[in-house]
């Protein structure tokens, strides 16, 4: 069984534990193992760069420095972690004076990093390395007729657009199609969910979420690849309903949860019950679809 060095990130051990568990289960089902990077630390999210630019590089760089002795790549599920880890390599390559500064910081803790660890998002890994063919072969319950809206958010494709387009990406669309689902055209698929402004500037961010949910009110579910997008889209639907004057009650699931359903994995591994909106309806709907052995 091939294994990947995995960077879970803070959300995956708390608000997105269902993402973490479903990702591990799906990879296991495809015969890949996710091995946690030992003693990993926070990537800095969007906060580190506000405190100190050097900190926003050095904090994720500690993880890459630790990873390089184990592997030549690291995989993550959170879009913010993906960006921050990827950004270390990008900034080191584009800004040579940064290297001695990073050396000074990491030198304090006996580490060194000068680029070289390839940073991957799980979506990228599944679509490019594992491949849609292998995924389709593992499907035991085609999600036929399930109308899904693929929501990518920002950081998995911006600014680096390593494996897909920054405005209208298709990798998740193709993956969901391989599961048998009907992918709804969704032009808002990479518009921002507001990120942490949902806590610090609620009024401003709520409009962004309303704009995202309004056109997909009738979908069977919206599919996400990022813990913060998932939370922002599902936790404020009552306020969004009031704002747009129409009821919004649409399940927001991780792409790994939907893969797990198509693989007919047990609910205990997918934890759809931990989602806040309408997972009962979704599991009942999928539960009626036939399973092949």
């Amino acid at each position: 069984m091939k294994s990947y060095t995995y960077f879970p990130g803070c959300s995956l051990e708390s608000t997105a534990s269902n993402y973490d568990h479903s990702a591990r289960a799906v990879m296991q089902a495809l015969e890949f193992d996710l091995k946690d990077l030992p003693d990993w630390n926070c990537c800095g999210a969007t906060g580190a760069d506000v405190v100190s630019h050097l900190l926003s590089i050095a904090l994720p760089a500690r993880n890459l420095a630790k990873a390089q002795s184990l592997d030549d790549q690291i995989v993550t599920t959170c879009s913010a972690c993906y960006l921050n880890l990827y950004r270390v390599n990008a900034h080191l390559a584009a800004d040579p004076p940064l290297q001695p500064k990073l050396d000074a910081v990491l030198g304090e803790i006996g580490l060194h990093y000068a680029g070289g660890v390839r940073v991957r998002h799980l979506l990228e890994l599944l679509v490019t390395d594992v491949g849609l063919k292998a995924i389709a072969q593992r499907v035991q319950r085609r999600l036929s007729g399930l109308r899904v809206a693929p929501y990518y958010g920002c950081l998995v494709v911006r600014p680096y657009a390593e494996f897909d387009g920054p405005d209208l990406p298709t990798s998740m669309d193709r993956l969901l199609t391989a599961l048998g689902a009907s992918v709804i055209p969704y032009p808002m698929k990479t518009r921002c969910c507001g990120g942490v402004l949902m806590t610090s500037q609620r009024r401003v961010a709520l409009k962004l979420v309303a704009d995202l949910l309004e056109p997909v009110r009738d979908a069977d579910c919206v599919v996400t690849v990022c813990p913060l997008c998932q939370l922002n889209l599902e936790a404020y639907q009552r306020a969004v309903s009031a704002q747009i004057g129409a009821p919004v009650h649409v399940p927001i699931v991780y792409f790994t949860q939907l893969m797990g359903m198509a693989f007919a994995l047990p609910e205990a591994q997918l934890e759809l019950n931990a989602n806040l909106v309408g997972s009962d309806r979704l599991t009942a709907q999928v539960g009626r679809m036939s399973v092949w052995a």
Partner: protein
Amino acid sequence: MPEKAFNLTREMLDHSFAESVAPDREKLLTCIQCGTCTASCPTAYAMDYTPRQLCRLVQVGLRDEALHSRTFWLCTNCYSCTIRCPRGIALTETMAAMKRLAIAENVEHEEKESVSRFYRSFMATVRHHGRNFEPENLIRYYISDPLGLIGQAPLALSMLVKGRIPLTPGKVEASDEIEAIFRTSIAMDAAEGAA
């Protein structure tokens, strides 16, 4: 908001301003004011200066006017402007640099209060454990805003019931390494006067 007229005087202009907030100053000075950034920005609707206008303030060196804007506090870091700019200007990085500068110079603003308080709460929590611990982050953030905490309580409670809020923090064992990274990075940036 309507375009604002200035009676420009020499004293109002700081020609080194672009350098202090744009890692790619040369590029920023080539801005042609096309407005692609503004058209791409999801929160431009709530800003006082649009991203295009803020870029112009930086170009000409209207430092005080720019730093007192709420614009960069409402930047969500979505990078839409950065990838679409026909001049290749990394405006998202400039927005972050302006946040740092406004904090360093204690420029007060209604939006800054809540946005920077959130970032500081988050980073204090990360410095403490090496990772985020949501209950601690929220307590740090809401300690000066108890009403806000009450407003957030129903969501926090349902997340707790769903098992999505842990009661104990995930910790980095080498906590001295995290502290060293924070201490050294912040000290080096400060010594350099970098924004």
